[in-house]
């Protein structure tokens, strides 16, 4: 695992020095949100001390600097996923990006939206909401390894207008073949949206290579601040979209009976934006680029293999991930005989932070894992082999003391 120098980069994350309940913090909850390096934390302070102003409006010195900062951030995001800057719409988070599309896409009665069993609620509910105007929602199934049933796409109806899927599941860790699915969907005339909230932080993502029409992700899961997210919109189809929020800066000209709207991306960025967030996200991207996304991916893959291998040796655990063709360092599991919250509580006493419950993917957890909640350990570039050992050791103690394996 020497694709990156983990001991050196850990020094950039002040929170990792914290003691929690008397123990060194082991943060295994990065799928919920990542920790932030000091480059991002200090950068946000720098923004408010040196650049703060409302961009795109006033023409004074600070406004110019803020506009530059906002525009540079957009350029960085665009380059990061191989898009054009005007194809990058800043939003609050992945949820807002998907909701925006659910309002903006020209979906009508009898059109089909194909989403999947692996989705977060945010890639289910916005589409369920369209049922009241007659849009039909179909759910692509998964097999026992938590891989998507690709035959669905081969056989899907011509009425399918949108295929939407997560690039990486936030529960099973399955990494879907978005490129292949996109190719099939386009052949059938459907548009493709990829929820990349769990993939963009962990692997190189290239929208041209994946050939998708829309891609959504959140800044806070990729070392950036909360409240900033991205919706990539393929420029050639942007004219098919209706407006979402209306107000300042999304127009070219407003007369009382004649409004001319702005082009992409401004048309979807009504009102004063989260400039601090965009700036911070740009710094997070600088940080990831300095390591190199190939290295981040390699290191994450090595962590995932080690995590599943070591957890696999603990009797009394049910492990739900690590079986699909391709997967990330997200391990959903239960201790037999214990509720996930109780396991999370016992681990917290040892300074280990994991997630428990439904992970905002209740249909998947209930119908596919067939449990009423699961624990989830999710790792990122600052986690170590040594932490995996400590985690597995504590898990073993919980199994022996309280489990019923």
């Amino acid at each position, binding site marked *: 695992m020497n694709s990156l120098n983990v001991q050196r980069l850990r020094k950039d994350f002040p929170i990792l020095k914290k003691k929690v309940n008397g123990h060194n913090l082991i943060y295994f909850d990065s799928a919920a949100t990542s920790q932030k390096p000091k480059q991002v934390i200090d950068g946000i302070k720098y923004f408010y001390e040196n650049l703060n102003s409302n961009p795109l409006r006033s023409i004074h010195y600070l406004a110019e600097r803020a506009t530059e900062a906002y525009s540079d951030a957009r350029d960085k995001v665009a380059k990061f996923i191989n898009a054009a800057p005007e194809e990058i719409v800043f939003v609050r988070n992945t949820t807002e990006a998907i909701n925006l599309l659910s309002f903006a896409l020209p979906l009508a009665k009898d059109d089909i939206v194909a989403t999947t069993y692996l989705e977060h609620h945010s890639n289910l509910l916005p589409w369920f909401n369209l049922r009241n105007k007659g849009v039909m929602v179909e759910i692509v199934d998964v097999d026992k390894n938590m891989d998507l049933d690709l035959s669905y796409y081969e056989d899907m109806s011509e009425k399918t207008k949108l295929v939407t899927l997560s690039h990486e599941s936030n529960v099973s860790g399955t990494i879907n073949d978005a490129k292949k699915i996109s190719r099939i969907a386009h052949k059938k005339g459907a548009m493709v949206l990829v929820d990349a909230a769990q993939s963009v932080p962990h692997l190189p993502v290239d929208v041209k290579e994946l050939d998708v029409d829309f891609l959504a992700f959140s800044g806070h899961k990729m070392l950036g601040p909360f409240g900033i997210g991205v919706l990539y919109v393929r420029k050639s189809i942007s004219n098919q979209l209706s407006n979402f929020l209306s107000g300042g800066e999304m127009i070219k000209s407003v007369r009382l009976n004649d409004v001319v709207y702005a082009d992409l991306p401004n048309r979807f960025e009504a009102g004063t934006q989260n400039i601090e967030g965009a700036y911070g996200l740009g710094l997070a991207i600088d940080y990831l680029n300095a390591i190199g996304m190939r290295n981040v991916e390699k290191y994450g893959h090595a962590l995932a293999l080690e995590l599943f291998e070591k957890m696999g040796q603990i009797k009394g655990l049910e492990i739900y991930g690590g079986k699909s063709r391709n997967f990330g360092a997200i391990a959903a599991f239960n201790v037999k005989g214990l*509720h996930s*919250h*109780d396991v999370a*509580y016992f681990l917290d006493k040892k300074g280990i932070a994991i997630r428990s419950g*439904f992970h905002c993917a209740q249909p998947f*957890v*209930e119908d596919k894992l067939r449990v*009423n*909640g699961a624990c989830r350990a999710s790792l990122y570039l600052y986690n170590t082999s040594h932490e995996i050992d400590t985690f597995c050791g504590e898990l073993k103690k919980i199994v022996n003391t309280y489990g019923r394996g």
Partner: protein
Amino acid sequence: MDEDKVYEFLDLYRNPEQFGKPKDFDVEEEGFSESCGDNFTVYLKFDGDSIRDVHFEGSGCIISTVSISKLCSALRGRRRSSVPKMGIDDVKKLLGVKTISMSRARCATVGLDAIKLAVEKTGDE
């Protein structure tokens, strides 16, 4: 840290009191916690103004299961009018703890909320 005490209740969690669907009951109500996946059903049998018996079934974490089990035991024979006034402090008293963290408050009250709904549903008789 007070919550540690709750984990003394592991035996009650494994073999809860008042568990199982009774043959004879007047009303049933579900208690569900979205974030946890706790899912319980409570069954109440009344005797005029008082609660003759309360049972529950379903599953959840230690805190939710022990809370609902202890509530069911404690409410037997109590006046139904005492239920709507109950809150998390009453659950804490039953558990013998002073505090319950914000993230676990819902666990402690999922059972109580279901029992309250059941009493409300049957109205004043």
